[in-house]
């Protein structure tokens, strides 16, 4: 029987925070990046969830499908699942669906208006995942929970920064961008 590998919760918190910073940059960069904002939001949620699972000693999910299955069948994670799933679905639509000759949906903007990406995916869905996961982390590793960057610190509006070079700036010069996130107050 093989040894069960337990992923490191700290690694997942660091990955979640790195994703958070990228998400911050994309929000500052503006609405043309909404599909990838949705995708980054899903990946941040993924690492937050895996951090919570790892803190409990749960086996790391090896792929998206397995993770979804674990979340929907484990009582402790079903509430998280209900908010993670719309994130996952939105990121799937963002990455794989384009239908310019179609009868309704043509591009991701038809599915979700830019500001809705922030209000629904970040401020609601990701926020709910974070809140639940932080509660789990706090009960297992309180110090680690305090290091997780929270989406409440992300810009509340999409920026208008030009991205002519393809390199996204991080200066916070974009309209409506808030200051770069700082470690979240777990309270």
């Amino acid at each position, binding site marked *: 029987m093989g040894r069960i590998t337990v992923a490191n919760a700290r690694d997942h918190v660091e990955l979640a925070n790195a994703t958070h910073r990228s998400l911050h940059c994309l929000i500052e960069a503006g609405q043309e990046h909404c599909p990838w904002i949705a995708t980054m939001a899903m990946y941040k949620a993924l690492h937050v969830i895996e951090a919570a699972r790892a803190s409990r000693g749960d086996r790391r999910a090896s*792929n*998206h*499908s397995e993770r*979804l*299955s674990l979340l*929907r*069948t484990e009582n402790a994670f*079903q509430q998280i*699942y*209900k908010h993670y*799933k*719309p994130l996952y*679905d*939105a990121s*799937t*639509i963002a990455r*794989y*669906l*384009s*239908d310019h*000759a*179609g*009868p*309704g*949906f*043509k591009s991701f903007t*038809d*599915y*979700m208006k830019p500001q*809705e990406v922030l209000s*629904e995916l970040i401020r609601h869905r990701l926020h709910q995942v974070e809140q639940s996961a932080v509660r789990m982390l706090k009960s297992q590793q309180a110090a680690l929970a305090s290091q997780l960057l929270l989406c409440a610190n992300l810009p509340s509006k999409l920026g208008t920064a030009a991205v002519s070079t393809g390199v996204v700036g991080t200066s916070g010069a974009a309209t409506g961008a808030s200051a770069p996130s700082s470690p979240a107050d777990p309270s």
Partner: protein
Amino acid sequence: MLGMAEGAALAPQLTAPLPLRRKTRHFLSLAHLPMKPVPATAGDTRSGNANILHLRISREAQTVTVHPENEDRFSLRVKDAIRACQAFADAKDFEERFRFLLTRLGVWVLGRKDIHSAFVTQRDGGFLFLVVRKTAGYDREFEDQLAELDVEIATDQDLRGVNMATLGLPLVSEEALSSFLSSSFVLSLVHGAHNGGQRSRSR
């Protein structure tokens, strides 16, 4: 795709009810799939599609039924599903649960007015319940209810071992939809009552 006459010739008349477990009592006759072919309808282009097998769902009084358009093809698809999932050593047990799953999904589809089409297909070693809504925009209530269904099915003891994910899509063309459907296993759930719910499909 088999035509009506061919389907009628092949469809066996099975009358024995499937064994029912706890929750099936809510549906009582739901797990008894009437084994009769569904005739093709005017304007139905289903004959152009060799991969999708249509299941017609309908409600009469308190009963919801799911009609495979061709029972032989449906049985073959169930065997495909067993091979795909590799989770059940007992094919009969799997078939019973799979039919129950289809009925659960059929009840859910019938209870909604915002669904354009619904499919059961194969993905990542399990099933995917793919629902296409009538509109292009995100709908929070729909997403919440689909996630609820997802959890209910995943935790239903009558469906234990059946690995199924769900995905809601906005209204898209069949071409765009096809990339989400398995090339080898697709069941389409269509409204059986009134052809207004019937949707012609081709891939």
